[in-house]
């Protein structure tokens, strides 16, 4: 037994050194040299200032910006403490949340989308994402918001719509996953068009 214990202690030290320090240090060395942008969090800079990460949603509430999906983190869109909403399918709180979010979307987008009803609101606009920092919205939700952003910014709708297309991540290899629109990148492109 004592011998097994001694062997275990040596094993623990050896594995911790090799797998706990050697391996991650090697990977970090490689990453920092070969792929520094990704390795440091895909940070987005504007004028030498870090404005966010293309992999994390951030809070957009100004009417001139595209808005993100709802988030269950505290505060919303917190990439330092991600979380699910964990709302079960029959939880009355889920029904209330969906109702409240849909009402808010109708109120915000209604004036710019004549005849808008709740049936036109895509589901991702009213339910929380998995990470709470989903950087993407569905194309349907982006198209819905395009009218508002164009009107508020005094930009032609066609310009905004083409920016949506440019910032849509297609399916990888045209096949895998689902299409989505990166909100931060889209809003940066909108800002570049000016016309606050």
């Amino acid at each position, binding site marked *: 037994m004592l011998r097994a214990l001694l062997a275990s202690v040596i094993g623990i030290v050896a594995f911790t050194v090799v797998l706990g320090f050697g391996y991650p240090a090697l990977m970090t060395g490689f990453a920092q040299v070969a792929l520094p942008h*990704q*390795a440091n969090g895909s940070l987005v800079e504007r004028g030498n200032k870090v404005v966010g990460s293309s992999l994390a949603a951030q809070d957009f509430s100004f009417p001139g910006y595209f808005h993100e999906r709802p988030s269950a983190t505290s505060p919303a869109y917190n990439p330092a403490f*991600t979380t699910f909403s964990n*709302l079960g399918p029959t939880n009355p709180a889920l029904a209330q949340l*969906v109702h409240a979010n849909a009402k808010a979307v109708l109120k915000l987008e209604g004036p710019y989308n004549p005849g808008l009803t709740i049936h036109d609101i895509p589901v991702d606009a009213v339910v929380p994402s998995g990470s709470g920092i989903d950087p993407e919205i569905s194309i349907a939700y982006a198209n819905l918001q395009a009218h508002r952003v164009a009107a508020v910014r005094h930009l032609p709708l066609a310009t905004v719509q083409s920016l949506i297309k440019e910032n849509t991540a297609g399916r990888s290899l045209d096949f895998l996953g689902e299409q989505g629109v990166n909100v931060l990148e889209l809003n940066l492109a909108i800002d570049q068009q000016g016309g606050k």
Partner: protein
Amino acid sequence: MGQGIAQILVYAAVLIALSYPLGIWMARVYTREQSDVIERGFLRLLGRDAAADQNWKQYGRSVIVFSIAFSVFLFGLLRLQGHLFLNPDHLPAVPWTVALNTTASFVTNTNWQYYAGEATMSYLSQMAGLAVQQFVSAGVGLAVVAAVIRGIARRGGGVGLGNFWRDLYRSIVYILLPLSVVLAVVLIWQGVPQTFHGHVTATTLQGAHQTIARGPVASMISIKQLGTNGGGYYDSNSAVPFENPTPVSNFLEVLAILLIPFAQLVMFGRMVLARRHAWVLYAVCFTIFAIGVSIAFPAEQHGSAVLRNSGVNITNSASQSGGNMTDKEVRFGIANTALWATATTDVSNGSVSGGHDAFTPAGGAVPLVDMFLGEVEPGGVGSGLYGLIFYILIAVFVAGLMVGRTPEWLGKKIEAREMKLAAVGALFVPTMVLVMTAVAIATPAGLASIFNPGAHGFSETLYAYTSQSNNNGSAFAGYAATTFSTTFGTVALYFGRFFPLLAGLAIGGSLAAKKVVPASAGTFRTDGATFGILLLGVIALTAGLMILPALTLGPIVEGLMN
């Protein structure tokens, strides 16, 4: 939905194509006579006789002593992280109940998480504590499987099952580490961070401050997926873009979940010289997997009553994936998230790419039942193939009863001792789950962990103890950490890991000592469809029937309300 089905079919094809050569490679790794230079040095370093052939008791003792010693080490690290280096964000010690549960969780290859990684664990704890366990606990699982298989394959003479330290070394150096390096490189390329710099604060477009957690993530995520671990760097696991940024990373991560487990079956067939039999097992496991996906995917696409009745648009179209998008990510949509949920619970992985708590009743029942069956479809890297072997023995026994002969399996007579061990191995964990769930649901301390009201709250409890006892680690994550739930869970974790593990080793040891009986005309064949169907039936009738009453209290009630 066509697009989703196509993605799932391509996934299955790639899985089969890659698990085959890997299985051949793994069989070679565990049967090779010579040791490499480092292996010899490592074994010498461990002490005299460290490289000797071990019987099942000696092998089991090495596993247990090693696991306990590593538990002490890891617990100490988590408690002391506040005073140690590689802690750029100055995180304090992990509270002791959470540290205890986390230690048990990672040493047992479970990776149940009662904490939020990015806000609780220092870089040191993540990479030198938790990620090391992700290698080692998976390596231990693979080693035990190799030992059990050697026992089955042994043809006369001796009771040795091999050497634990050698098997552990080979599992890590020849299988887990190389695959992890390759996967980590691809993940970094796709956008998973790998840095020692601390959190970064951004000034958002609207002028607010946003703190972004990062760290040595990719090196952990690759082994988390490959070693059926599942313990993420971030709280929302592989739903978080920093753990799983693109559909490409998602495809590879979900592939990594099932790759080694299915390869294990190929390895098994080669090591026991019964390849046809192994393909039957492969087909059985694949069938259970396929059934799971074909329930979960449509259920999630159909969505919950709340969403359907709300009036919002949940129809799948070119501009949205639709369905139950609650706690799911846009880039994965419904098909990929349902595929992941099934794969991660068919084996003991437990990582998630969406919140299972928010799944529809039928969609959430799939991972629950998969786990309760003992994750034998085809068993985790950690919990191993031996879970499936318990069922195989029961199936062979049932067949023997039907034809009135002593049951045989792979040329060995199956007798009372093996059957007792197999029955204990197959029934111990499900029984423990039901008892623990009953206690947790009948006491105020247990009820305090529940987040969702009604039948779903029961499902959360059942899921929690099913997941921890079967060393899965996925969760209906609303279930909260309390002193009760963390300590109770710790018991489930250790018992769920080591009871079946020792039963499996004992069966290996018992079969090793048996003489080979030549197959005769009366021998029940285990390499055809008949046996496959029988095995499916046995799995459904043992663990399947045990969970049915509990299902009626949780997902079935909820499904009727939905």
